[in-house]
């Protein structure tokens, strides 16, 4: 992640706090996948995995989204459950983690179901499962999305991003 994008995200985190920032990051991520051509993108703020993505003729992925400023994050039982549930419908489980620091980018880790465990995990442990091609494409798309929407998000917060998601055809499940 370039320093400009990082700066914008830090600005958002500073204004809205870690909790809301996590949701903002999640919506920006959803918008990014939409920009990458994923026709089916579902973003959830409630029960279930955070984002589903699918593209015709390609694998479907269910993502648990985490943002952190530290070296680790927590994957709770609920997260693991949600991923397993989605797997039944053919969605491959992915943990998407963004650490807010220079040179970091979204790590998309496709963790095998039989290795999914709840608990505190080092972000770097996920590197064993990276989907590097998808990460590279996401990096470009995410940069553009942040550039476009960070000012609006800074002013309008989650409400602004909800509107953008709706405009882009992303299904948003808030309840």
């Amino acid at each position, binding site marked *: 992640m370039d320093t400009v994008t990082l700066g914008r995200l830090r600005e958002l985190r500073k204004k809205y706090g870690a909790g809301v920032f996590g949701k903002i990051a999640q919506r920006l991520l959803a918008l990014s996948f939409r920009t990458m051509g994923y026709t089916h993108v579902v973003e959830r703020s409630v029960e279930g995995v955070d984002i589903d993505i699918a593209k015709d003729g390609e694998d479907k992925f269910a993502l648990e989204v985490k943002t952190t400023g530290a070296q680790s994050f927590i994957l709770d039982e609920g997260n693991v459950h949600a991923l397993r549930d989605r797997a039944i419908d053919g969605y491959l489980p992915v943990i998407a983690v963004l650490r807010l620091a220079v040179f970091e980018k979204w790590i998309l880790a496709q963790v*095998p*179901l*039989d*290795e999914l465990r709840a608990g505190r995990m080092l972000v770097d442990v996920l590197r064993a*499962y990276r989907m590097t091609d998808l990460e590279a494409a996401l990096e470009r798309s995410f940069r553009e999305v942040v550039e476009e929407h960070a000012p609006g998000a800074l002013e309008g917060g989650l409400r602004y991003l909800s509107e953008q998601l709706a405009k882009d055809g992303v299904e948003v499940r808030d309840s």
Partner: protein
Amino acid sequence: MTYKERVREKIASGTARREERSQLWEEITKAYEEGSIEQVESALTAGMADITLEFRHLLEKLEHLL
């Protein structure tokens, strides 16, 4: 079934990195059978030594760019 075979089967029935993990398991059991616990420890840390060296070497190079 010996402990070796049992674990080997588990690895083979997993979904990811079967080959690499099977190979690693063979190395672990070979080290164990040759020299017990300490040998397992040595074999694993020896494997990390090169990675650690390369990691630090590259990090040092990047530091110079600052």
